């Protein structure tokens, strides 16, 4: 039975992340959120940090590594990068960092748009279970979950975290 978790106060965590990211404002960063959860969080961060460039959003469906197995989800949202990434410092935002495959796909996609000066990863939830050598520089909350548990961000309003048990 999925249960909403009150362990994490999502809004407070986002505020914390904004504080952690504030020093990077000097680099005039470009923020990109990964659909869907990452984009919701990025919207709030973007407002809290008062960034001037419009927020970019990424749908990584075309860069996933499990396309042959699972196929295409027709509900693809368009990736939208309003600004040029060439030479920019990018802040990439996602909701949950788990295996790392989504971030790998996102990096590949960003590099197809241009060559950023740097990419900083900011995630709301950092959980164990990495399958690729990928880490976040800014983490809202660390969580340890059971193998069959998944954590999902619900939204867009209000933002809530939900833990689901997968049936084996």
């Amino acid at each position, binding site marked *: 039975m999925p249960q909403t978790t009150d362990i994490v106060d999502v809004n407070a965590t986002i505020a914390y992340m904004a504080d952690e990211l504030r020093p990077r404002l000097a680099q005039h960063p470009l923020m990109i959120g990964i659909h869907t959860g990452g984009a919701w969080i990025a919207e709030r961060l973007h407002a809290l940090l008062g960034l001037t460039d419009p927020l970019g959003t990424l*749908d990584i*469906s*075309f*860069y*996933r590594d*499990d*396309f*042959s197995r*699972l*196929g*295409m*989800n*027709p*509900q*693809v*949202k*368009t*990736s*939208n*990068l309003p600004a040029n990434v060439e030479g920019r410092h990018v802040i990439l935002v*996602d*909701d*949950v*960092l*788990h*295996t790392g*495959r*989504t971030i790998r796909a996102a990096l*590949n*996609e960003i590099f*197809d*748009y*241009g060559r950023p000066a740097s990419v900083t990863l900011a995630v709301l939830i950092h959980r164990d279970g990495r399958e690729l050598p990928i880490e976040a520089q800014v983490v809202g909350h660390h969580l340890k979950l059971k193998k069959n548990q*998944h954590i*999902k961000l619900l939204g867009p309003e209000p933002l809530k975290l939900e833990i*689901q048990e*997968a049936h084996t």
Partner: protein
Amino acid sequence: MKRDDLQFDSHGRLRHLLTIEGLPRQTILDILNTAESFISVGEREIKKVPLLRGKTVVNLFFEASTRTRTTFEIAAKRLSADVINLNPSASSTSKGETLLDTVRNLEAMHTELFVVRHRESGAAHLIAAHVPEHVHIVNAGDGRHAHPTQALLDLFTIRRHKGPIENLKVAIVGDILHSRVARSEIHALNTLGAAEVRVIAPKTLLPTAVEKLGVHAYTDMRAGLDGVDVVMMLRLQRERMTGALISSEQEYFNLYGLTQEKLSFAKPDAIVMHPGPMNRGLDIDSAVADGPQSVILPQVTYGIAVRMAIMALIMGGTQAESAPAGGRRT
């Protein structure tokens, strides 16, 4: 006519695209929605996504066509697939390889997707019925029967420029009798619930019992275009005179060629479409083809995105509704 189950695999996923007949409404919408996402790929610097990397797509064109073949090639390459173009001779009297033998030889080269164009109706179905499970067929036009990718890109164009199909009256003008484009358009428009579909042509170019396809038939442009939102012009092959199907190009253009005057019979904001290549001065007047109501050039761009969507959906299958939330591994 029973539903074409050949197009779907045992899990209900789209395996081949042979004809619009038998495609559920949702499948058509999935293709159009996916195509939307692919439009932006064409607008950025690196016009590629790695979706079909390592896969081979063969353009098997028994009937020559540079333009359609090129759009399929571009679409496949933008998906990072490897593309091979083959133009085998389609002579039916030649004692050479049969159609199926040609396909079998190619399968041995480990091709995942064949895009097939053939001058005989039913060729794509025949091939699809005889390929192994992992091979996919996209029909790029079979005789007079179907040209599903064209119909889908036309639907995409209409949706983009005129909004939901349900509200629209669409007229298809020209050689309906020989047109696979017309047949596929009619099925597609009716499946998406167009308000009305009309065909306009002289009687010699209207097929028997055409109303059974779900259209109203007209022989007069003024009556046929009255109140229409979309005017779709078909290409007339100039050789039709020898078959005693039309009298002269002059008379055909006078009666059915789309001029500014005839276009005024339709709604003032009607759009003009043509699958190409156009016969200027026969199907359509240059002024109209290049005019403000024409969406003929955008049709070409959309064609690439729609074909990318079709290939992506066929090659990877479609995520089932019941896929768990954990299916997307983060």
